[in-house]
């Protein structure tokens, strides 16, 4: 193999797209070629920088709304067909008022109201679903520029004390970087009218918001799963705290996140 062949195959090697045989050939060439070794290192670090820069663009909320409006909504279609009055539902303004009463930072109020209006069409049956809608709204709000973190660090010993005096409970802050979920910071948020801690993790280019609030009473001992608008939500209650994990990563990975978090929170019986 010569350098010009390797120049192309280096990328396939980086991207894990080569079968074992070709990978060996490319690696053999690289190990004997100083230029290609540097080239590989440069592209690897470039790729790393790009992954860390989070270059993916989040679709704005109004666009998400416009696209949702294209799809026939189950409830309204059925109601029109049966020529019945629409089922009683919570008017959007009621939710908006709750959100306002909850006391957001001013910058977040507007997008929060939009998000609330967006989710209220779907969640109207019970309190659980309402809260699920709220945490998804809070998650979407956090993805607006500048809203993700109030304290930005991957050090759990910086994030945890930051919450001191801001909340009437001490949220657990667990660093799961070694398990593939990078801790990137924390902020104060609002769930169900209560101030909550939001601990922010990143998995590849996806953000996971972990909301922690004082137990509201309707807790789940086991992990409950929801999927709304393409967002996965996991909810559970432990040691007097309610937890919600929200992300657009797939359900299996969010389950993995929850399991690792719960395992880290549970004192190990032995010191293995």
């Amino acid at each position: 193999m010569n350098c010009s062949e390797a120049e192309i195959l280096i990328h396939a090697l980086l991207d894990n797209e080569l079968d074992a045989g070709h990978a060996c050939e490319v690696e053999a060439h690289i190990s004997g070629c100083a230029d290609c070794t540097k080239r590989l290192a440069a592209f690897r670090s470039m790729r790393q920088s790009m992954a860390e820069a989070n270059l993916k663009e989040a679709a704005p909320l109004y666009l998400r709304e416009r696209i949702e409006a294209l799809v026939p909504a189950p409830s309204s279609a059925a109601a029109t067909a049966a020529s019945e009055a629409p089922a009683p539902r919570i008017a959007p303004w009621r939710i908006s008022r709750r959100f306002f009463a909850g006391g957001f930072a001013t910058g977040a109020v507007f997008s929060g109201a939009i998000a609330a209006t967006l989710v209220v069409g779907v969640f109207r049956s019970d309190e659980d679903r309402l809260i699920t809608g709220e945490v998804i709204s809070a998650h979407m709000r956090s993805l607006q520029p500048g809203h993700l973190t109030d304290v930005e660090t991957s050090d759990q010993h910086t994030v945890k004390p930051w919450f001191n005096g801001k909340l009437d409970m001490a949220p657990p802050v667990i660093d799961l970087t070694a398990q593939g979920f990078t801790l990137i910071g924390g902020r104060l948020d609002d769930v169900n009218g209560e101030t909550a801690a939001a601990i922010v993790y990143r998995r590849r280019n996806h953000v996971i918001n972990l909301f922690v609030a004082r137990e509201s009473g309707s807790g789940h001992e086991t992990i409950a799963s929801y999927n709304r608008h393409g967002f996965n939500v996991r909810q559970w209650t432990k040691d007097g705290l309610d937890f919600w994990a929200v992300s657009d990563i797939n359900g299996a990975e969010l389950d993995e996140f929850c399991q690792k978090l719960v395992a880290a929170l549970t004192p190990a019986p032995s010191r293995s």
Partner: protein
Amino acid sequence: MLDRAQSPALTGLWAAKHTTMSAETDAERGRRFREAALPHLDDVYTLARYLLRDKADADDAVQECYLRALRHFDSYRGPAMKPWLLAILRNVCNAEFARRAAQRTTPADAPQEPVNDEPLWQEPQASPETELIRHCDGETIRRLVAALPPAFREAVVLRDINNLSYCDIAEVAGVPVGTVMSRLARARSMLRAAWNAEEGTAS
């Protein structure tokens, strides 16, 4: 025996029942479409932003993409949803490029879009290899990626931002996997040259 046409009451009943059934089918179809297509909205939007380099145009293209996808959802049998949606988006963007080119009232034989997109830097063929890529912030990287010529920009965005496999990229772009590999290699070389040039000017 009553003929359906002679009985307005029955006709109404039949029509109502028929509408209800098709509405339920629509609702079910809508639900399936939401679950399959909406999770990829950010990916579709990302590609639109990078290809069109204009926020309002990207909004319109994404909306048009989902309209087309919904229209053809019944005949969708695979491949995976994400490359399928991205391929539709790409077609929508190409139509937009054609429209822009037509509006520009350039001579008919002038080449389209890419010409002015050639980057100002040249790939340094014989420059000493360095393994150092210094830190660039997200905004700078976005700008550098956006400055790549369309076919190369598309390859980088699909691979490094949308995380598609080479096979999926080939499907979206409608080219063989070999072409994907060479485009990606060239695209990253251009990007790296621009990246290094950026560091030179920044310091």
